[in-house]
């Protein structure tokens, strides 16, 4: 068995080569999670590797079990989530940036305007708006623990 059925799903890039660079995922994250028209306020970041003739890349939260960002958070604003990744209690966050430094995937950006980190909360909005089957919410293999 690849996943434990009792666990929640985490965001997964399943077919990066199918990305058409529409950026619907980034716009969805900023719209749904952050309430902004924005590409910066998005926990998923699509990038080219060397112009549009190159392949594309998605920088996403890798949904750690025992997430270092949560371990580093002194205020319990980031809490490990069953199934991998974190939940974010924005009201507890003081904007200390410990999570940004701690992230082993280097995917937590800091929103200077709100003085809070931009953290993936595994809501799946980006995957829901991916038109080409690049992203999906999947159970993280238990072996990854």
């Amino acid at each position, binding site marked *: 068995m690849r996943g434990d059925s009792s666990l929640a799903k985490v965001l997964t890039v399943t077919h990066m*080569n199918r990305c*058409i*660079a*529409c*950026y*619907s995922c980034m*716009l969805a994250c*900023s*719209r*749904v999670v952050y*309430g*902004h*028209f*924005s*590409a*910066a*306020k998005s926990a998923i*970041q*699509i*990038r*080219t590797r*060397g*112009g*549009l*003739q190159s392949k594309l890349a998605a920088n996403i939260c890798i949904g750690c079990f025992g997430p270092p960002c949560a371990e580093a958070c002194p205020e319990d604003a980031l809490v490990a989530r069953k199934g991998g990744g974190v939940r974010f209690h924005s009201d507890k966050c003081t904007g200390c940036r410990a999570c940004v430094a701690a992230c082993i995937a280097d995917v937590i950006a800091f929103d200077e*305007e709100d003085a809070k980190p931009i953290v993936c909360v595994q809501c799946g909005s980006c995957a829901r*708006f991916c*038109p*080409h089957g690049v992203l999906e919410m999947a159970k993280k293999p238990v072996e990854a623990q």
Partner: protein
Amino acid sequence: MLNENRMRTLYIDLTNKTFRVEERHDLFDWLGGVGVATRLFSELVLPEADPLDPRQPIIFAIGPLTTIFPLVTKTVAVFRSPLTGHWGESYAGMRLAFALRFAGYDAVVITGTADRLGYAVISPEGVEFKDARRLKGLSTEETGRILRETEPGRGHRSTIRIGPSGERGVRFAGVNVDTYRHFGRMGLGAVMGAKNLKAVVVTGQESYPIADPKAYRKAYDQIFNQAVKTEIMDKYHGLGTPANVVPLNELGALPTRNLQSNRFERAADVSGEAFARENLVRKLACTGCPVGCIHVGLFRREFAEGYEYETVTLAYDHELIFALGIFLGLGTREGIFSLIEKVELLGLDAISSGVILGWMTEALEKGLITEGQVGTRLVFGEAEPYLVALDRLVEQPNELYATLARGLTAAVEKFGGADFACLLGGHEMAGYHTGYGFVLGQTVGGRHSHLCNGGYALDQERGILDDRDRMVRRLIAEEKWRQVLNSLCLCLFARNIYDEPTTEMALSSVGIEVSEERLRELGGRIFYLKLETKKRLGFRPDQVRFPKRYLETPTFQGRLDEEVLLDLHKRYLKQIGEL
């Protein structure tokens, strides 16, 4: 500006290397895109000065829904066309609109000329003026690569640039936008070249709070679902625009060999199906479009014996297959790709280039021009000589090429052959020989494009010619409504999604309350301001020419009658109040 009743307009003066931002409340009434650009251009154009005079303005604009709604992906450019001498208007997708949105500008006005070849970097902080002398003479691809490595903002910026053709003032030079899209038509590349402006990089990470998340998300989701979960956009994502090749051939509406024929015997070999089967390697989208109509094909070329290959990837579309293939009698995808590659690197407009090469081939056959002048023997169906001619159109080694570089209208004035020059409204034709609607539509359209009023689609309606006044009324109504769509700067492929109620709903969800009636009023207002401005620049709506070739080669509607065309034109003039 999102959430604000004003247009944030960036004015760039290349001569003095200065810029300023104006918050224009008065422009809000023009909605955005072509409405705003038309208004700005009309304020700033100098009717007495040449189109390539450095003082002439280039206007770029995006719309109120840009990036924040699916398929609203275009940037409009308005300028004085060096090709026709009057109205220049062109649209490009890819990432430019997105970059302008998050750099925080609704419109950008560029005037003046750099003292030496330069490029500009636009960001929320303003404009940096940079030296581009190392980019002189470089192809659009190499220019893009260097700027990509020099400037920050990977993945979110936009880089628009001209190739050698724009630098050398070829009047149908376009502007390459982020590799796969272009401001192709009407010579914006030459206008940038005249300003010593090799490129513009746009970058920014601005954010805007959503005022009414519930209404906005409802509107967004409805439009997104229409785009990806219904059949409306299928053809654009599936085969893409080359899906047109086979049906147009079957209709007898495919301009072949300089429009000597309306059918191409090798259409199946260069059809959307053939390209998809043999060459398609990926699809891409303009930023903010979940459809993804950009079809990228792989072109493998054997350059020496011993299994020596080089490989390039190129975007292909109906217009390219038409202009650089079918119109030149080229029935191989390899031949078409080699011409597409050449046109891309030189930074030329594909349609004008192909139509000019078609005329040259026939003019050579007829003895109006000589092989000595051309420098090669152009023959329908052979790619190699066309590659030579394209280079020479840019190099302009003699009087023939210097004249051709000014466009086909200039060439026929000097060398004759107007009867078989495939021009409509002074502009090289698009790939639809469908009938009266297309010929009249491109002739009278504001920017002399098949996209002004969609005449080619009207031609395919049964009984459309039964009532000529009604047909003309439909053309005009369509062109006026498209002013609204182009003020939103959405992709016209999405015109069936953004009908009047949907457009009104989308605007309302972001706080712009405007009725359908008001939108229609706006469409008419832009239509007439454009016409009035064109007339100030010397355009005469009553002076038209329908080259004989359009009357000789049968269309989908059969052979066209000049009397009918002139009558339709007269009715058109009457309906727009010019008669």
